[in-house]
């Protein structure tokens, strides 16, 4: 038996599972699903605000991912890739449900370095409700940037909007959260 190797020979489990799923191994794909389902569903639920739609979107996300898996570059992040799919699916479902969405010009974008800290601690259910009540565009940008940690550029790309628009939506989200929660959002 070969002795333990240094880190450069460490097996990347997710990549190994992706590789196996690419060959048609649905058990490997199920492991990937189990690993990522919570974050994908959380994203879909927050974007659609509807449990049934979110379940549909989550299923659609993983089915689309299964179909596209051979094209997935293992050097990139699987979670980011899944989130991109989930955003696309959720936007499409939402568009279908209410075809006309609000738009926002990108000139008013100013929220470059927000940490999204709250002056006074707020209960989770309260803040979730406040996020839930945000307009679609502002909520989408907020979820991807403040909750999922994507940069303005990444969030804008996922949402198919200009970076400035994304910043403007975040600015709007901050203002609305401040009004609703009655605390400063810094």
């Amino acid at each position, binding site marked *: *038996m*070969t*002795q*333990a*190797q240094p880190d450069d*020979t*460490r*097996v990347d489990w997710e990549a*190994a599972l992706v*590789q*196996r*799923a*690419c*060959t*048609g191994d*649905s058990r490997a*794909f*199920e*492991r990937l*699903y*189990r690993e990522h*389902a*919570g*974050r994908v*569903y*959380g*994203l879909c*639920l*927050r974007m659609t605000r509807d*449990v049934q739609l*979110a*379940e549909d979107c*989550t*299923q659609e996300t*993983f*089915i689309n991912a*299964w*179909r596209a*898996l*051979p*094209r997935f570059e293992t050097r990139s992040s699987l979670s980011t890739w899944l989130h991109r799919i989930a955003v696309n699916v959720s936007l499409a479902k939402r568009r279908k449900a209410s075809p006309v969405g609000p738009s926002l010009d990108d000139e008013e974008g100013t929220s470059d370095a927000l*940490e*999204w*800290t*709250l002056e*006074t*601690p*707020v*209960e*989770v*259910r309260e*803040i*979730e409700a406040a*996020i*839930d009540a945000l307009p679609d565009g502002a909520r989408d940008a*907020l979820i991807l940037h*403040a*909750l*999922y*940690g994507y940069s303005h550029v990444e969030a804008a790309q996922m949402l198919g909007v200009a970076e400035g628009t994304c910043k403007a939506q975040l600015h709007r989200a901050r203002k609305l959260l401040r009004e609703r929660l009655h605390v400063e959002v810094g």
Partner: protein
Amino acid sequence: MSGADERKVSSLRELSPAIEPARDLWPQIEARINAERSTAAPPRPARARAVPPRWLAAAAVVASVAVGVWIGRSLLPAARPAAQSPISASRANFTDAPTALDVAYVPDPRYQRDRAALMKTLQARLAALPPPARAKVMASLAAIQRAKQDLQNALGKDPGNALLQELLVNTYQDEMRVLTDVHEASDPGRGI
């Protein structure tokens, strides 16, 4: 969204992005995947595209039959206790011979005999294949060998890891599948 969560947070970053669905969504996903698989080919890695379609189709037919027969004959014999499947056998052997992992994963003499027989004629069989197919087979076997080595190394660090054990067994199955493909594809008149 998080129900009656009364925990207080002072930053949005403290909110968990993950929300577990109220029900398991996998069964429906799996059903859709299986339904698609029954009407279309499963997703394949990019490397398979370079193989000539005619040979690929023939190999697919041969492989599906050969692997099924081989697994039924060598890995899951009805008369043998379930404990002798590669995964469970490997677990048993860890306690007996923890320093001989490479041997522990191939405990079945029939597997060893079949593999030895296939390896013995491999070079001659490879010579009978079209050059592009031969190159693909050799690349596949090399990749499998590397995967086996990596997995064995990792198991040396974490011998009880069930996922590793499963992946290693899968690589042995992959190797046998390739060897059987080569054997059958270069001698189509031979029965299994």
